[in-house]
């Protein structure tokens, strides 16, 4: 893959890229299908319910059935909606979600592109999705969805900053923005990961990440008890599915990114466990992060808008800045 | 009413259909109460005292009728002329020995030839309770609003207005509350004709 990327873009190479992208899209779709199943099961168990059990063995085909239903549903566009933007919005939301996955390294050899500005690429693209959400909220011509969209914009700006600043410490320690370099900078024991040295950064990152995902307790843009469904009130059928898809692809992306940045990527937690393949370690950590996100959803109430803002600017941002300062001082004093 | 003897105005409940408990009322304490007002403390004597006070403080003809509602835990029940109702309500609210700060219920009743509104007042401090009836004529009925005194009357008066058609001058926002805005008629009136006979 790396060699192909170095070569000139010919028709043949382009088709190979496209082919791989489609293969990967299906992997991601598979993940989303079963992440939803997993979420419903896990939350179901936490709430003394069974979760899906009917469609297929153990309800395994429930999400498939749900997606099918969404696909064959009538596609409604409100009469007073801004048609072009209304159609564009789900696509604008989804495309960056998928595109950011290109820079995630799963194992030393399994990755799509090793960009030397990988982290920057991720942060820059992922914030584009907000535009889709705001557009969707605006174009629907619905007051609830407009408020959802505006909330989303405010939240995005407030939390993108601590999110990016919180990982600066990691970048300083590993000396590169490339995600491969960052993983390689971490060792084969869990104390050599970025998790412990960058604890503050990790906590800020996790909180900001949950907020970026618009998940409980930061699910204000789609707070169903206030804004009915927020920015996607008017969406139905496959357009709605696109929003949902984007949300879960972001779960995939953030879980991967957390694994890569703080949990040592493919490295085992102890050096003696090195014989287990790196991909498995990656998946294990990844699943744990995903589980953590779902767990939060079953536990937390929703935070209020003003509290969300003040928390982001008054707590998370200073903490992230302190983290940079401490890291810099540490590097200056002990690593030089 | 004002030309009647004083004791009659207390015991003069001719309106049998409304309060039949008159028959059960203790007759004896009345005479004693006349002699020694403060020594004997029965519901009846207290009611008479209240009527005297009202006549003195508000107007001579303020009370149309005053009875003790035996079945309802000796609840003093008085009927006030609607012209004096606002002043009486304020009196009940401000008079120290009553200080009725809590309007617990407000109900409109269609009594056939007249409409009336019944107020159940209570003071959370002194625990004194009273039921007040205010009557109004059937054509163009009105009763002064007590919303300025007890904000809780707001929606209750709107409900009475909606369902019985009584106007409450002084109410800040008198609109229909239960029925649609374009509804014709007032359903709780006895002569209301439901358009759908099957209901």
């Amino acid at each position, binding site marked *: 893959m790396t060699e192909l990327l170095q070569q000139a873009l010919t028709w043949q190479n382009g088709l190979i890229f496209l082919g791989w992208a489609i293969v990967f899209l299906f992997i991601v779709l598979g993940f989303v299908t079963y992440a939803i199943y997993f979420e419903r099961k896990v*939350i179901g168990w936490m*709430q*003394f*319910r069974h979760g899906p059990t009917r469609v297929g063995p153990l309800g395994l085909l429930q999400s498939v059935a749900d997606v099918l239903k969404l696909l064959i549903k009538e596609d409604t566009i409100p009469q007073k909606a801004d048609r072009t933007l209304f159609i564009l919005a789900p696509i604008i939301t989804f495309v960056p979600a998928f595109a950011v996955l290109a820079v995630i390294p799963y194992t030393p050899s399994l990755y799509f592109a090793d960009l030397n500005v990988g982290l920057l690429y991720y942060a820059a693209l992922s914030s584009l999705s907000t535009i889709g959400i705001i557009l969707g909220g605006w174009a629907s011509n619905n*007051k*609830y969805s407009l*408020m959802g969209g505006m909330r989303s914009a405010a939240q995005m700006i407030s939390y993108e900053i601590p999110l990016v600043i919180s990982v600066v410490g990691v970048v300083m320690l590993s000396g590169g923005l490339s995600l491969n370099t960052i993983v390689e900078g971490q060792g084969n024991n869990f104390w050599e990961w970025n998790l412990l040295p960058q604890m503050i950064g990790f906590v800020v990152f996790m909180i900001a990440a949950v907020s970026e995902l618009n998940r*409980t*307790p930061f*699910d204000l843009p789609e*707070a169903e*008890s*206030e804004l*009915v469904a927020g920015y996607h009130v008017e969406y139905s059928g496959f357009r709605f599915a696109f929003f949902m898809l984007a949300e879960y692809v972001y779960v995939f992306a953030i879980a991967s990114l957390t694994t890569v940045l703080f949990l040592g990527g493919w490295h085992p937690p102890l050096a003696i466990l090195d014989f287990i393949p790196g991909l498995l370690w990656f998946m294990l950590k990844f699943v744990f992060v995903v589980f953590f996100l779902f767990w939060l*959803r079953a*536990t*937390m*109430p*929703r*935070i*209020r*808008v*003003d*509290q969300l803002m003040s928390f982001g600017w008054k707590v998370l941002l200073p903490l992230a800045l302190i983290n940079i300062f401490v890291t810099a001082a540490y590097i200056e004093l002990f690593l030089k | 009413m004002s030309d009647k003897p004083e004791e009659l105005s207390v015991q003069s409940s001719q309106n*049998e*259909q*409304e*309060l*039949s*408990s008159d028959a059960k009322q203790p007759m004896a304490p009345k005479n004693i109460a006349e002699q020694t007002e403060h020594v004997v403390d029965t519901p009846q004597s207290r009611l008479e005292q209240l009527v005297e006070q009202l006549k003195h403080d508000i107007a001579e003809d303020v009370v149309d009728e005053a009875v003790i*509602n035996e*079945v*309802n835990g000796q*609840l003093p*029940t008085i009927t006030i002329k609607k012209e004096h109702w606002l002043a009486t309500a304020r009196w009940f609210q401000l008079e120290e020995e009553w200080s009725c*700060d*809590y309007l*617990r*219920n407000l*109900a*409109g*009743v*269609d009594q056939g030839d007249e409409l009336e509104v*019944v107020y*159940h007042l209570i003071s*959370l401090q002194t625990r004194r309770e009273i*039921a007040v009836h205010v009557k109004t004529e059937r054509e163009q009925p009105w009763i002064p609003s007590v919303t300025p005194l*007890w*904000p*809780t009357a707001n*929606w*209750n008066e709107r409900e009475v207005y909606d*369902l019985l058609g009584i106007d409450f001058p002084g109410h800040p926002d008198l609109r*229909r*509350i*239960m*029925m*649609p805005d374009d509804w014709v008629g007032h*359903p*709780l009136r006895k002569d209301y004709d439901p358009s759908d006979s099957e209901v």
Partner: protein
Amino acid sequence: MIRTEELLLNVGPQHPSTHGVFRIVLKLDGEIIREATPVMGYLHRGTEKLAEQLNYTQIIPYTDRMDYVSAMTNNYVLVHAVEKMMNIEVPERAEFMRLIVMELQRVASHLVWWGTYLLDIGAMSPFLYAFRDREVIIDLFNELCGARLTYNYMRVGGVKWDAPSGWIDKVRDFIPYMRKRLKEYDKLVSGNEIFLARIKDVGKYDAQTAIAYGLSGANLRCTGVNWDLRKQEPYSLYERFDFDVPLSFNGDCYDRYTIRIEEIVQSLRILEQAVEQFPSGGETMGKVPRVIRPPAGEVYARIESPRGEIGCYIVSKGKAEPYRLKFRRPSFVNLQILPELLVGQSMTNLITILGGVDIVVGEVDC
């Protein structure tokens, strides 16, 4: 100059957090509420009008449908009013049955409130926990009278069904079960930082305002006014039992929350004593004439429902049907303070405050 525009937003009649078909018209400046106008009547069934054509026993099922979360207390207020008018003695066993079902109902009603309130605030799990425990109570009622929501259980002069064998033991078993669960809930929710930040100092009012607006129940007691009709104007057998009236003094949503949780605890206390003292035998129906014809007159009976003072004003002309029947519905009265509380609050607090008032729209509209 930036020109801002007020946004007119209809919250409801179909909205997840208005607990039924209730509408509030909001004038919004951004997310800040400038004016709120509640609109109701979508669930108005004319119970009071219908009752004028029905005899008293026939009205009982209609009361079930007013406050459908707490049908037992509604049953009681009607039969209580008629019994007052007719001076009917209710056998002790029947009165015990009534008291037990009313207190169970209070627990169930508060559980529904607790679950839905947290759902409003965005926590999903407590809703399901609350319904799991409420289910136990509903099953008890189901066993008792065959209905799960609209019980039609009480009659003038007693109750329709005696407790099946073993039923009282099941109630007895329920008490420690619920106590254990309450402790769990307290750990899960009451200390949650986000939850506290959401409800503390929100929707505050003082005792004077509360009294002026005629609030009752937890909405009144959260301002420190000690007014629980079970204590202040005892009815049924409440005088026999030892229980406290939870009070607090801040008058915000948090206080209303703690009071309702504490009320569950107190209801369990009452239940415990009631189950202990439950008479082993006796009638469940008193001596009641074949046709219930209260003498001409009027009566206003009131009891403490989970939502506050529910009252029943009956004007009788000596017929089998009431001449006029008026219910004082606590949800309807308590809701009046809403427009005043909402001005200057954010859209999010609207949900917190509305949920904190604890309304049942079936009762608001009647």
